[in-house]
Structures are given as structure tokens and as C-alpha cells.
């Protein structure tokens, strides 16, 4: 199992290598990427990053996973030119989410491996097959809203097809909604009262006073159940959001099922925060390595959660 981290500064490469990172990914300002955070320069400067990463024996990927780029920012020829520039610099894979970009890259036959971004969520084996068979995807980054047990079929299919799988570490990935389909991130469809941090509305709830919730359309006269649900909604929309499927136990199960890579992808974190979080992930991976196979899965999982949560 390998550890993959985002980088937002070339100087992070040797620091992260020492922490046991095996692969890194980065974004550039002139190729659309999801969240558009922490990009390093432009495509023209990618060669320098790729060279520096390879010198440290790190694989290096480019996030080209903008999903909703408007036409004016997605001039096909210009985009392809920039992607070719990064490809010729020796990048080891492109992380892609847009079906349109997958189509373009297939036409261009760049020969660079493609990773399916979690922003284009793969929740089932059929979706995995669709992207592998139509676009030659070589790695699938699983969305955090998929339980390990639900991913069983995808993991088996990927192993049989020689496709790698990747998950996010469960502690450092925020949006409780379906990533890529969450438009609470930006006030495009509503009017925010005051300034909101990027993702402020969906990551933690509104964090103001509790939301006012009342039944709007009643389908069944179940007053007590409706009142309970309204109270639950009020708390969840204001504090903490929806529950999470990718928890410590599910992370253990993903590792046990043989997922290939664990990702740390919070590009908005500064370098010391990234380093501290990478240490925690590496420790968790080491703990998993010591427990798996030594105890029954249930006992190993229990011990892992105890260690991870403690």
C-alpha cells in the first residue's frame, strides 16, 4: 500500500519523501482542477516539478480534474497543448473527472495513464467498467461516500483488470455530500449572508445558530416521526453535516481488501499541517500492517480503531 500526497509547493517534495510518501500530485493554474486551490505555477513550469519529484523517486501526477469548466476556460486546442506540455515533461498520470476531457484525451492518444478522480464518483462496478473500457483508466480514486463493504465488487473487478484503486484517509477529507455534485460549495444557487470560506456551507454545516426546520410537504401523517426528523436535520445542517461511511473501521477494511493507495488531498493546508497529517497517516498504515494477518479481521479492526482513535 502506497501513500500519496498533494503538494502545493515544490519545497514540500523532500520533506514528504522523508515522511514515507511514495507518490505526489499537484495542480497548475492554467489546467482546470477541482477546487482550484494550491496550484503551482502553470503548465510551462511542470517539467521542473516532475524532474524534482523523479529525482526523489516519487511518482508524480497532475490534477486535471475540473468538472464544470465553462467554455471560455476550456478551449480545447489550448488545453490539449498545455496537457501535452505536462505529459512531455514526464508526468506519471493525469487525474481526470470530466467526461469531455476523457473523450479528448482518448482522441489525442497521449499515452499517459489516466486516473478517475473521486469528483466523478465511482460507486459501482458498472461505472468502473465504463471508465476502464471506454477510456483506459488505470486507477480509480474511490469517493469517500462509499463504504468499504460496498466497494467489494469494484475492488475485485479492478484487481482482475489490473486497475489500481485509491482511497482518501478517513480523517482528512471533508465534504459530507457527493463530491463534485455539491453546489453548497459556492453560492451559485443561493445568496450567502456574509462571507463564507470555500466549502464553509457544506463541510461543517452553517455553524451559526441552529437551522429552522419545519415540514413543508407532508406525505404521511406521522407527526412524531416528522418532528424527530426535523430536529435531526436542524442539528446536522448546522453542525457536522451528514454521517460518514468512511470511518476508522471502514478504512481498515479497505486496507484489508487490498486497496493500492491512500491519499492525503487537502491542498488548502499549509506545509507543517500537511506534514503532521502525513505522519498520522503513515502511522495508521504501519499499525494496519502490524495487525493484519496477526489477528482475526474483527479483532485486528477493533485494535486498529482503538489505536487510530486513541
Amino acid at each position, binding site marked *: 500500500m502506497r501513500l500519496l500526497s498533494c503538494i502545493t509547493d515544490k519545497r514540500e517534495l523532500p520533506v514528504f519523501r522523508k515522511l514515507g510518501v511514495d507518490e505526489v500530485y499537484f495542480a497548475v493554474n492554467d489546467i482546470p482542477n477541482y477546487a482550484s486551490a494550491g496550484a503551482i505555477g502553470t503548465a510551462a513550469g511542470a517539467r521542473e516539478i516532475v524532474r524534482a519529484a523523479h529525482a526523489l523517486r516519487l511518482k508524480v501526477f497532475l490534477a486535471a480534474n475540473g468538472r464544470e*469548466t*465553462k467554455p471560455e476556460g476550456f478551449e480545447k486546442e489550448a488545453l490539449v497543448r498545455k496537457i501535452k506540455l505536462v505529459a512531455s515533461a514526464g508526468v506519471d498520470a493525469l487525474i481526470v473527472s*470530466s467526461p*469531455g476531457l476523457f473523450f479528448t484525451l482518448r482522441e489525442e492518444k497521449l499515452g499517459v495513464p489516466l486516473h478517475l478522480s473521486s469528483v466523478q464518483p465511482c*460507486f459501482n462496478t458498472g461505472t468502473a*467498467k465504463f471508465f476502464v473500457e471506454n477510456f483506459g483508466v488505470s486507477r480509480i480514486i474511490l469517493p469517500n461516500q462509499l463504504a468499504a*463493504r460496498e466497494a467489494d465488487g469494484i475492488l475485485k473487478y479492478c484487481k482482475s483488470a489490473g486497475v489500481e484503486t485509491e482511497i482518501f484517509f478517513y480523517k482528512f477529507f471533508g465534504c459530507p455530500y457527493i463530491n463534485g455534485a455539491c453546489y453548497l460549495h459556492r453560492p451559485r444557487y443561493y445568496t450567502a449572508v456574509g462571507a463564507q470560506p470555500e466549502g464553509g456551507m457544506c463541510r461543517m454545516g452553517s455553524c451559526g445558530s441552529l437551522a429552522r426546520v419545519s415540514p413543508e410537504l407532508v406525505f404521511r401523517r406521522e407527526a412524531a416521526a416528522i418532528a424527530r426528523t426535523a430536529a435531526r436535520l436542524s442539528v446536522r445542517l448546522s453542525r457536522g453535516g451528514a454521517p460518514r461511511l468512511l470511518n476508522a473501521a471502514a478504512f481498515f477494511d479497505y486496507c484489508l481488501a487490498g486497496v493500492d493507495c491512500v491519499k492525503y488531498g487537502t491542498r488548502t493546508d499549509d506545509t507543517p499541517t500537511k506534514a503532521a497529517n502525513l505522519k498520522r497517516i503513515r502511522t495508521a498504515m504501519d499499525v494496519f500492517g502490524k495487525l493484519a494477518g496477526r489477528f482475526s479481521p474483527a479483532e485486528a479492526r477493533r485494535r486498529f480503531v482503538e489505536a487510530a482513535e486513541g
Partner: protein
Amino acid sequence: MEKGLKLGPGAFRDKTALRRSLKAFDWAYFGPEFCENLLEPGLLEGLRVLSGERKNVCLLTPMVTDKGLAALEGLFSAVRKLRFKGRFEVSVNDFGVLDLIRRKRWDVRVNFGRQLARNFMLVGRDSVNILNQSGLALLEELKVGRLETALFSRPPGPRLSGPAGALRFTAFYPYLDVTVTRTCLAGMPEVSPYDSPEGVRCARECLNAAYRVGSDRIKEDMIVGGNTIFVDSGGPVTAAMGKSLGVDRLVFCPDT
């Protein structure tokens, strides 16, 4: 302009009332658009009833895990045996569901639903952006000619940015889906760190009600229907506005 009605929970309790409610519409839209936990045996029964009506029918399907994919495989096999008096279409919100339909060589007209359509277009308050030409070329390759969306209908009204060509749009109203989660805000219980979940536990709380939500951080109220959060986007777009955008079908969704 064709008109559709999205049937909500309990639509089939009274057949006479169902007929009455569908009278003014050409299309019946039916099925769980956002949540695989609502892929239940009652769906087939509902479709059987609708197959006997002189209406066109569109089956809405959600994003699915392998569990939902298996449920849809069974449902699709049964639906293929039905004879609809009107046209029949399937709306998909998951590439895996499209893959299933193609693998089974089911020659049914497929539309991309509100979630999947966002890969190809983006709705703003006053515009509809076609994201890129390569996306349109892929739609052609996939033989998908219709995208579903919700539009803000208030003045000045949406404009189309970028060519849509032969692509046709279905516009849902009066709610626009802002975000969706698998781990339902309304229903799913919290998960202990020691429990590796089997999936999303669901007690069908969404079948009781949809909720209006007021927050001190958002000016407008939001509507929570099951695992999806909506905003009120107004009534149907006008026929003239629809024509300029390529909208030739409006679907009224009173229950979200």
C-alpha cells in the same frame, strides 16, 4: 412543449386520483431520482399501472452502488416485458446504469438525469452553460440526446452559453437540486468508528415529509427532500424561453 408530472410517494394509492392528476400531462415521471434505497419492489407495480395508461413514461434512476445496480438489473428485466401504450424512456444518473443498459442490449431511449447532466452543462441563475464540445461529442457517441435540469425561471431568464446542437433539454420545476448525499441527513443514524458500515442504513423517513430549512447563513429557504437539498427555482420557464434553450419538455415536481 411537452408536459410531465413527477409522481411522488403515494401516487398509486388511488388510481382514479392518479388519472385525474395526470390528465393535463403528456408524461409520467416516476422512480427514485436521487436515492438507491428507494429502489423497491413497488416500483415495478407502479410502472405496470402506468403502462396501461395512455401516457408516456420516464423511469427515473439514481446514483447506485452494486446493490442498487443489482436491483435495477432485476427491475429492467421485468420492465422490458411490459408493453407501454405511450413512449418509454429511462433517465440515468450514473454511468454504471448506462453501462448496464448497454450491456443488456436494451434498446431504450436513455436521458441523462439531473446529476449526470451536470457533467455536460451547468445551470446558473441566468444562464445555461454547455461545458465543452467534447462532452457533446461523447453524448452523441453514447446515443444520449436529452439532458434533464432545473432552471431558474425568474426574470431575466436563462440564456444559453455555447451551442447545444441537436441536444434537447427537460426542465424540472419548481425546485433545483443544490446538493445530494448518500448518507441521508434526514434519515441515516450516526456510525460508530468501530462499525464498518454495510452501506447506508435507512428507515424511509423521507416518505413522511419534505422540510423547509431557514438558516442565518443563507438568505433563501432551502427544501430538504430525503438525501437532497433543493432551492425554490420558480415556476416553469416560458415556452419562448424554453424554445431558445432547446427545452421541449417541462416536468412539474410538486414533491421535489
